[in-house]
């Protein structure tokens, strides 16, 4: 009957349709968890109720905040470093098959090596501070950016390329007006993969070094059978991952409003 009216209200209801289900589902899971723990009287060190987890967070927010800041700095440091280097190498590789063949095997080696095994070496080289954490986060996020950026820089519309080449456009002109913008959807796809990976890298490095950050916080909580804090750390890391991914998605939406994926 009022089909068109329903269509016009689409944007708002689809926004609600996007946000409501996960919120409802998450709340339901926490509620079930709370009820289950209370009804079955599960021991706190095995599985604390969500209320206890939130209380742990609430009681000492600074501990979590400073640990999160430490881990986040290492993760983002590694991510930015690796993405920058990987994109630079991808620019070289995209312009020369020879360079691409030279860059790929060592890059693949980095990818297939269990990075964690390099930790002792990285600790010897970079000490026990933020250095090895950044290095692990960087090594873990390097490959997705390299591969995506090479593909992206090559994925130019051949007709658009021809239109520039008949004007004797320089490589630099073609790069900045065509290749670079064409690569952005691929760069953002890489970031969506590597942002959570960078957190994994930082936390794993903290497990191994036990010196600071969320990894250390988890180790200490674990040793003290403080399972509520342990869960608190997990919640904080999950929230960090979600926020960073959402941030990437938001920037992507603004930068790539021309891209076909933007309408979806």
């Amino acid at each position, binding site marked *: 009957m009022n089909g068109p009216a329903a269509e016009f209200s689409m944007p708002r209801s689809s926004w609600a349709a996007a946000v409501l289900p996960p919120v409802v589902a998450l709340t339901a899971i926490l509620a079930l968890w709370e009820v289950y723990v209370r009804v079955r009287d599960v021991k706190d060190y095995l599985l604390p109720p969500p209320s206890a987890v939130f209380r742990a967070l609430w009681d000492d927010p600074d501990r979590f905040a400073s640990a999160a800041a430490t881990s986040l700095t290492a993760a983002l440091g590694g991510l930015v470093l690796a993405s920058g280097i990987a994109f630079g190498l991808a620019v070289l590789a995209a312009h020369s098959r020879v360079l691409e063949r030279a860059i790929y095997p060592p890059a693949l080696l980095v990818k297939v090596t269990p990075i964690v095994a390099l930790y002792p070496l990285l600790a010897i080289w970079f000490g026990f501070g933020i250095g090895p954490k950044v290095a692990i986060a960087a090594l873990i996020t390097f490959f997705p950016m390299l591969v995506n950026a090479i593909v992206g820089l090559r994925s130019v*519309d051949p007709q*658009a390329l021809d239109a520039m080449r008949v*004007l004797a456009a320089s490589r630099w002109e073609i790069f900045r007006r065509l290749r670079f913008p064409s690569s952005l959807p691929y760069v953002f796809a890489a970031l969506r993969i590597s942002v959570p990976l960078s957190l994994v890298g930082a936390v794993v490095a903290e497990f191994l070094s036990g010196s600071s950050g969320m990894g250390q916080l988890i180790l200490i909580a674990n040793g003290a059978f403080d399972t509520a804090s342990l869960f608190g750390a997990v919640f904080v890391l999950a929230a960090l991952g979600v926020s960073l991914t959402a941030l990437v998605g938001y920037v992507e939406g603004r930068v790539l409003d021309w891209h*076909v994926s933007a309408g979806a």
Partner: protein
Amino acid sequence: MTSTLDLAADGALTVSVRGVTHRYPGADGRALLALDGVDLDVRAGEFVSIVGPSGCGKSTLLRLVAGLIASQAGGIEVLGGTPGDAQRAHALGLVAQEPGLLPWRDVAANVRLPLDVTRTPDGARVNALLEQVGIADFAGYRPGALSGGMRQRVALARALVHRPRLLLMDEPFGALDELSREAMRVELLRIWEQERIAVLFVTHSVAEAVLLSDRVVVMSGRPGRVRAVIDVPLPRPRGEAQESSAAFIETAAAVRAALRAGDDGGAA
């Protein structure tokens, strides 16, 4: 129009192709002979079409003239120099079957691209061309919001904005529906008469070639050779109405006969 004819009459060659042969590396290791001893002239301000069976090397020939692929054998002169010289003089415009627009630029910015690349800003020229090809109302739209016909108009405006002296078109209307095609032909004629530049135009449509061109070059199938060059005696300015004239019908018949000549093994 008279000035167009004057330019054509002074005999200066915009394109001169002499004995051009081109091979591609074939899949089975043997070279594929795409063009074999092709000669072709386009005089200043002249509209020349190339017709021929699919795969006869029309695009190859056009890309050689555009300097997009390196010539292997024979001579190619564009405006008295090499195709590379013509590129550097910003004397070439190119329209292919797909528009090749930049999806992140709006229509006006897409048309402006050659001026950006050559660092010769000219906002008035961009606006004039948007007007000329009938897309001024869509100047702020992104290509994604346009129909195929409108995108091709943008591509045409982009190919002309830097005032090239040779416009190369490779089946520019091939992906359009019949109605858009007819509209684009008429627009192209009008624009060509205003801009007075030489056009080398590849098409599969005999009617299109005859309606638009001063001369139609008929190529034979693989390897690509020039089988015939047919003058079109229709007066300018031209329009769709001429498609029913006797001269049009005769010329189209001559082009079709030349196209078919190879089918029974004969050579024209």
